[in-house]
């Protein structure tokens, strides 16, 4: 029964992520309608961290790190979807559900701008979380 729960959980997360993906595509189309053309990948990531994040979550990403080889880590120290939960370890295992949609959002936004990627998220201490973006070179 526990395994069934696990499978269900996985399917839900995937569904949430794909919903986020579609929404991300539409949102990016709307947000970039009046902006200038992007110069490069880093420019696009900065846009996601500043304008995109601000419009959706009313704050910017606190920290962006990259290894300049296609891996970016976006750190949000006070992620809006997690602030309402207790800051201890209690709900750590439930956090991924809340992050799945946002992962899809990032992936969808990037895909509409011509970037294929894999986005994962991890929470080490609420309400801070990190989104890792791996750019796929086709």
């Amino acid at each position, binding site marked *: 029964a526990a395994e069934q729960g696990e499978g269900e959980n996985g399917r839900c997360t995937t569904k949430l992520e794909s919903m986020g993906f579609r929404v991300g595509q539409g949102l990016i*189309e709307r947000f970039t309608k009046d902006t*200038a*053309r992007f110069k490069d990948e880093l420019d696009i990531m900065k846009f996601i961290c500043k304008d995109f994040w601000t419009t959706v979550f009313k704050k910017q990403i606190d920290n962006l790190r990259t290894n300049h080889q296609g891996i970016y880590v976006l750190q949000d120290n006070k992620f809006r979807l997690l602030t309402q939960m207790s800051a201890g370890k209690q709900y750590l295992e439930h956090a991924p559900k809340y992050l799945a949609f946002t992962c899809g959002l990032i992936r969808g936004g990037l895909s509409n701008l011509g970037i294929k990627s894999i986005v994962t998220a991890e929470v080490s201490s609420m309400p801070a979380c990190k989104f890792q973006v791996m750019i796929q070179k086709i």
Partner: protein
Amino acid sequence: ICSPQNYPLYIRSVPTENELKFHYTVHTSLDVVDEKISAMGKALVDQRELYLGLLYPTEDYKVYGYVTNSKVKFVMVVDSSNTALRDNEIRSMFRKLHNSYTDIMCNPFYNPGDRIHSRAFDNMVNSMMMQVC
């Protein structure tokens, strides 16, 4: 309107005879669009604008291009005899197209990459073309 993979999402022409000729023109102009975009990396052409301007004039008509940040290309073919059409008007037509395209993208029932079958979009394009012809 062409997708990032260069297949058409939407084509409309008024009047409807010689439609094939227009389709062909649009197809060939895609090369010019791609050329302009790749040139932007090297030359210091205005990188910040989405509007590409006059792609190339032929004997009978002029072709204008516009590329969105999501790499969707809009191509407009206008009769050369229509000299009343100014650059501003072309820009505003592309703006309208872009706005309507954005609305379509946000429609949850629309799958990106499909042909566009929207009555609202058709109406918008119709009224725009009526204004010009």
